[in-house]
C-alpha cells in the first residue's frame, strides 16, 4: 500500500522529456528519409487531386447527379441495376445461343421481359428529353 501511495499519479518530468525526445527523433528520421523528389511527387498528386475535386464540384451536372443519387428512390434504382447486372451476367452466360430466324424474333417480341425492357427504356428516354427541353428553354 505504501508503494501504491508513493506511485506518482502525474507523469514525471523525465517521462515527458523522454517522449519529446522520441517525437523529435521520429521527426528527424522522417526528415532524413525525405527527398526533394518525394516532396515533388506527393505535391503533384495532391495538386492534381485538388484540381480534379475542383472540376467535379464546379460541374453542376455532376453535383446534381450526386444529389439525386443520394435519394432513397435513386438508391433503390442503383441497387436494382447492380443486382440485374449480376444476375443477367449469369443468365446470359448460362443460356444457349439464340437459334436465329424470324420465329426466334417473334418469340422474343412476345416475351413479357422484352416489353418490360422497352417500357423502362421509353420511360427513361421520355424523362431525359423532357428535362433537356426544359433546360434549353430556360437559356
Amino acid at each position, binding site marked *: 500500500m505504501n508503494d501504491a501511495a508513493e506511485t506518482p499519479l502525474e507523469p514525471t518530468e523525465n517521462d515527458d522529456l523522454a517522449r519529446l525526445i522520441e517525437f523529435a527523433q521520429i521527426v528527424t528520421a522522417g*526528415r532524413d528519409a*525525405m527527398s*526533394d523528389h518525394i*516532396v*515533388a511527387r*506527393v*505535391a*503533384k498528386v*495532391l*495538386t*492534381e487531386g*485538388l*484540381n480534379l475535386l*475542383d472540376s467535379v464540384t*464546379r460541374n453542376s451536372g455532376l453535383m446534381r447527379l450526386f444529389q439525386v443519387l443520394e435519394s432513397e428512390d435513386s438508391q433503390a434504382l442503383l441497387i436494382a441495376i447492380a443486382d440485374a447486372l449480376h444476375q443477367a451476367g449469369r443468365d446470359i452466360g448460362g443460356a444457349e445461343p439464340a437459334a436465329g430466324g424470324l420465329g426466334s424474333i417473334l418469340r422474343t417480341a412476345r416475351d413479357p421481359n422484352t416489353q418490360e425492357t422497352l417500357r423502362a427504356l421509353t420511360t427513361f428516354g421520355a424523362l431525359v428529353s423532357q428535362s433537356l427541353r426544359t433546360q434549353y428553354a430556360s*437559356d
Partner: protein
Amino acid sequence: MHILVVGGGTGGTILANNLARRLAPEIRKKKVSLTLLSASDRHMYQPGLLYVAFGEMSVDELYRDEASLLSSHIDFHVDPVETFRLDQNEVLTRSGQTYEYDILVIATGSRIVPDQVPGLKEGAETFYTEAAALKLFQRLREFEGGTIAVTVDVPHKCPIAPVELIFLLHDYFKLRKIRDKVHIKYHYPIGRIHTIANVAKWAKPEFDRMNIEYETLFNMKEVDVENKVVRSEEGTETNYDLLIAVPPHRGMAVIEHNQLGVGGWIPTDRYKLTMDGHDNVYVLGDTTNLPVSKTGSAAHFEAEVVAENIAAVVKIGSPVRDYDGKVYCFIEAGHDRATYAMFDYSNPPDLKPASKPMHWFKVAYNQMYWNSVRGLL
C-alpha cells in the same frame, strides 16, 4: 457586360479563373461574358527556369495547355492583341478580330531585351527563357573552374532571382567538389547588393560566408565578347570565364507600340490597379509601373484584388478593395535551404533563417502553382 482579359500568363489566368468563379451565375444567365486573349496556347511556370538551369526540373514540367487551366465559363482565344483603342473600348487582334469590352484587364507581362546592352546577347548566359536555361545548364556542367561574373539589370522579373542564383551556384560547385576552383563575382546596379533593403541586409553576411566577391554601383555598359570582359557605365570592368546576366527587361512590345506606357510599363494606380485616366481598364502583373516586385506573386495578389473589384462592380456597382502592395517570394538559399520574403507597401520583409522545410515548401509550390493559376490557392 463584356469583360476582356488580355494576357494568359500568371496574372491573367488567375484573374480570369477567379472572375469565372465569382460571376458564374451571371455568366450562366448571359448577363456577363468573359473573354481571355493570349499570344500562346501554352502556359509556362517561369520560376521553374532557374531550376532547369541547375538540372532540378525538366522543361516539360514547366508547361501546361492554357485551355486546360481555364474554367469552361471563359471564352479563350489564342489571338494576340495588336491594337488597343481605349477611347472606343475595343481591341484589334492579329487575326483581324475586334473585341469590344466594358471592362478591360491588361496582363501582358514583360520581356527580356538583352540587345539593349552591346555584346550581352552574344556573350552572356541567362535563365530567362527555356533555351537559355538549358544552355546555362550545359555551360555549368562543363565549367571546371575560373571566374563566373553575375550581372544584373533592373527592373527584372523575380527580383530575388540574382541572390538565389548566387546561392545555387555556390552549392552547385560545392556538390561538384570544385568550389575552391570557382571565383564568383556579383555585380549590382545600385549602392547595395539588392534593391530590397532587408534582402540586401540578410544576404550580405551570407555572401561573405560563401566568399562571394561583389561590386555595387555596376550598371552594365557593354560586353567585350572576344576578350571576355564586362564593362560598367561607372568605368569599372570584370574579366570572366562565364558571364551570367539578368538582362534588361521591358513591357511587351504591343504596349510600347500602342504608347500605353514608357518602356512598356503602364501607369497604374497603386491601390485601385486601374490604368491612369481609364477607370474601366485594370492593369496587373509585370506590365504595371507599380513600385512592387515584378513577380508571379505580385500578379497573383493583384489578380485577387482586381477580380474581387470587377465582380463587385458587376454585382453592386462599386469596387470594394484596395491592393496593399503584398508580395510573397520564396528565396532559395542553396541546394536544400530556403526562406521567404513577405512585404507590402507599408511593411518591409522580415527574413527568417533559411531551412530545409521551407525549401520543401518551395519544391511543393513548384507543383501547387497549377492550383494557384486555377484560382484555387
